[in-house]
C-alpha cells in the first residue's frame, strides 16, 4: 500500500495512532501514513487537539483533592463496609433479629388470630373511651411491658428524631391530657406531650444519672425527672407511671444481667456462665487484644476528655474490626469499644448530627452502659457522655440534613 492507494478506514488510522492495531495491520497502515500527507495531517490534528484537551482539563487546586480524600475516607468509614461485603447492617438491627430468632415462631394462623384479637381490643377500647369510661391502664401498656424499656427508649428517640426533622418544638404541639385520657406511659412522648423535646431530654438525662448509681439502689427508684416533668399530670397518672417505672427498672436489671452474661458466654471467656453467680463487685480485666490495640493508638482503657478526636478517628477502623472478629472478649471490653465508637461517630457527625447519626451514637452509649456490668468507671463515663450528648441535642434548634 502506498500514498496513491485508497486511504485506510478512519477507525484503523486512529487505532494506529493509539497503538491499538495488531502488528500485521500496523505495518500496512504505517506504510500508507508515511507516504500520505493528508492522513499524517489528520493524525497530527487529532493529536494536537487531544493534547490541548488534556492540558486544558479544569484541575482544581491541591487543597480540593485533600478535602476530597477526607470526604471519601469519612464515607468509607461511615459506610461501615468491608471489601467483599455488602453494607454491614446496624448493630441494633442485628440484635433485633437475634432476639427474634430466639423467640418461638408462631404459625401464620396464630399470628392472624392474635392480630384479630388485638384489633378487637382496640375497637372496644375506642368505643369505651368515646363513652367516657375511665381507664385504669391503657391498652398499650401490655405492648410496653412486652417490649421492655429499650423499646420505650427507642420510641422516645424515634419520636424525638421525628420532631427534630419536622422542626416541631413549640408549646402549641403539647397535647392536653384529659382526665379520661389513657394513663401516659413512662418515656412516651406522645402521651406526655409531643412538643416537649427539651423536657424529654432532661428527663432521660436525669434518669441516666440515676442509672449511674449502683443497681441495688437504682432499681427501686422511680425516675424522678420523669415525674417532675409531669407535675401537671393527674395523680392517677402519676401512680400508673410509678408502678410502670418500677416494673421497667426491675426488667431492665434482669435484661441487663442476662445480656451481659450472654455476650460473655459467646466470647468463650473463662468466666462464670449466665446461670452462675458472680462476685458482685468483680471487675473483669481487659482482654489482651483490646489492650494491645489501645496501646498502639495511645488510648486509655476508657475514653476520657484527654483523648483527641484524631486519635479516636484513627483507631476507629481497628476497633470496629476487633469488635467484628470477636476481639472484645468480655462485656466490659465490648463496652469500652462501644464507647470509643460512639465518640468516633460523634466526631464525624459534628455539631449537627442527622437522625441516623443520633440513633447510632445513642445506641453505642446505651450498649456501653448496659455492657459495662460491674465496671463503675465505664458505666459512669458512658452515662455522662450520653447525658452530655442528649443535652447537646436538646439545645439544638433543628435537625440538619445529612452531609454529603
Amino acid at each position: 500500500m502506498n500514498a496513491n492507494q485508497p486511504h485506510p478506514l478512519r477507525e484503523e488510522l486512529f487505532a494506529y495512532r493509539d497503538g491499538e492495531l495488531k502488528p500485521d495491520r500496523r505495518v500496512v497502515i504505517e506504510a500508507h501514513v508515511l507516504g500520505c500527507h493528508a492522513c499524517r495531517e489528520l493524525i497530527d490534528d487529532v493529536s494536537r487537539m487531544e493534547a490541548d484537551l488534556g492540558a486544558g482539563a479544569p484541575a482544581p487546586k491541591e487543597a480540593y483533592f485533600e478535602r476530597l480524600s477526607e470526604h471519601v475516607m469519612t464515607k468509607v468509614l461511615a459506610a461501615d463496609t468491608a471489601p467483599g461485603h455488602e453494607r454491614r447492617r446496624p448493630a441494633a438491627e442485628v440484635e433485633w433479629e437475634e432476639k427474634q430468632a430466639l423467640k418461638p415462631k408462631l404459625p401464620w394462623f396464630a399470628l392472624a388470630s392474635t392480630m384479630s384479637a388485638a384489633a378487637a381490643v382496640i375497637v372496644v377500647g375506642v368505643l369505651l373511651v368515646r363513652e367516657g369510661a375511665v381507664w385504669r391502664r391503657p391498652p398499650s401498656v401490655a405492648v410496653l411491658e412486652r417490649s421492655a424499656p429499650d423499646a420505650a427508649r427507642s420510641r422516645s428517640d424515634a419520636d424525638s428524631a421525628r420532631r427534630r426533622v419536622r422542626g416541631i418544638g413549640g408549646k402549641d404541639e403539647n397535647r392536653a391530657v384529659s382526665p379520661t385520657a389513657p394513663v401516659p406511659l413512662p418515656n412516651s412522648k406522645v402521651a406526655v406531650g409531643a412538643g416537649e423535646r427539651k423536657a424529654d431530654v432532661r428527663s432521660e438525662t436525669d434518669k441516666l444519672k440515676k442509672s449511674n448509681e449502683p443497681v441495688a439502689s437504682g432499681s427501686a427508684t422511680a425516675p424522678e425527672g420523669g415525674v417532675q416533668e409531669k407535675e401537671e399530670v393527674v395523680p392517677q397518672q402519676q401512680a400508673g407511671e410509678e408502678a410502670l417505672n418500677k416494673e421497667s427498672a426491675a426488667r431492665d436489671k434482669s435484661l441487663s444481667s442476662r445480656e451481659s452474661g450472654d455476650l460473655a458466654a459467646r466470647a468463650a471467656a473463662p468466666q462464670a456462665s449466665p446461670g452462675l453467680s458472680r462476685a458482685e463487685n468483680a471487675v473483669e480485666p481487659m482482654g489482651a487484644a483490646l489492650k494491645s490495640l489501645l496501646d498502639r493508638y495511645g488510648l486509655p482503657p476508657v475514653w476520657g476528655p484527654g483523648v483527641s478526636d484524631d486519635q479516636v478517628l484513627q483507631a476507629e477502623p481497628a476497633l470496629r474490626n476487633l469488635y467484628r472478629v470477636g476481639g472484645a472478649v468480655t462485656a466490659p471490653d465490648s463496652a469500652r469499644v462501644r464507647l470509643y465508637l460512639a465518640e468516633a461517630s460523634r466526631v464525624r457527625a459534628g455539631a449537627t448530627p442527622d437522625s441516623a447519626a443520633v440513633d447510632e451514637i445513642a445506641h453505642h452509649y446505651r450498649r456501653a452502659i448496659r455492657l459495662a456490668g460491674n465496671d463503675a468507671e465505664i458505666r459512669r463515663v458512658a452515662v455522662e457522655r450520653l447525658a452530655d450528648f442528649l443535652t447537646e441535642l436538646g439545645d439544638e434548634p433543628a435537625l440538619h440534613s445529612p452531609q454529603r
Partner: protein
Amino acid sequence: MTPPRPDRSDLTDDELVRLVCGGETDAFAEIVRRTRRSAYLLARRITRNHEDADDVVQDSYVKAFRALDRFTPGAAIAPWLLTIVARTALSSLRSGKRRAASALDDPGPDGGAPLSERIADPASDPEILARRLEVERAFARLSEEHRVILAMRVDGDFSYASIAEALEIPIGTVMSRLARAREALVEQMGKLRKVVPDER
C-alpha cells in the same frame, strides 16, 4: 500522643489492596491519593460540572472500596478505578439528576478562578490558551456518547479493551465510535474557526 498515619507511599498497589482487605481501612487513603486527580478529571469531563463530578468520585471510591476484593492482583489500580468512575459518571448522566454543565466562565470548583483562567498556564503563549479554549468549546458541542468515549481515551488514558469493558460494547464499536467522535471534534473545531475567526 496521636500516632502518625503510616507513610504508605512506597507500597505497591497490590500491597495496599491486601492491607485494606486485611482490615487496615486507612490504607485506602493512599489508593485515593494516587488516583484522585485522574478520577476527578475523568468524572468532570463526563459530567461537565464540578458538583456532579465530586459526587461521582466519592461514590466511585465507596464502590471501589466495597469491591476491592475483586481487584485482580498484579494489575494497576488506576485503570480499574477509572472504569468504576466512568460507569458511575455514566449512571449519573442517565439518572437525569445531573446539574447544568459549567460554562467556561463559571467559578472554579473551590470558588477560585473560572475555567477559562484556570486552564491557562500563565507562562504559556496566548495562542495556546486560545486553542485550548477553542477545543474545550468544540468538545462541549459533541454528543454525550462522543464526549464520554473521548474523555475515557484522553483523560482516563483507557485502552480500547478497557473502554469496551467499561461501556460494555465490542472493541469494534469502540474503534468506530472513537473515530466518529474525533471526526466530530475536528468538524466542530472547523465550525468554530469559521464563526469566530478572530478568537484564534
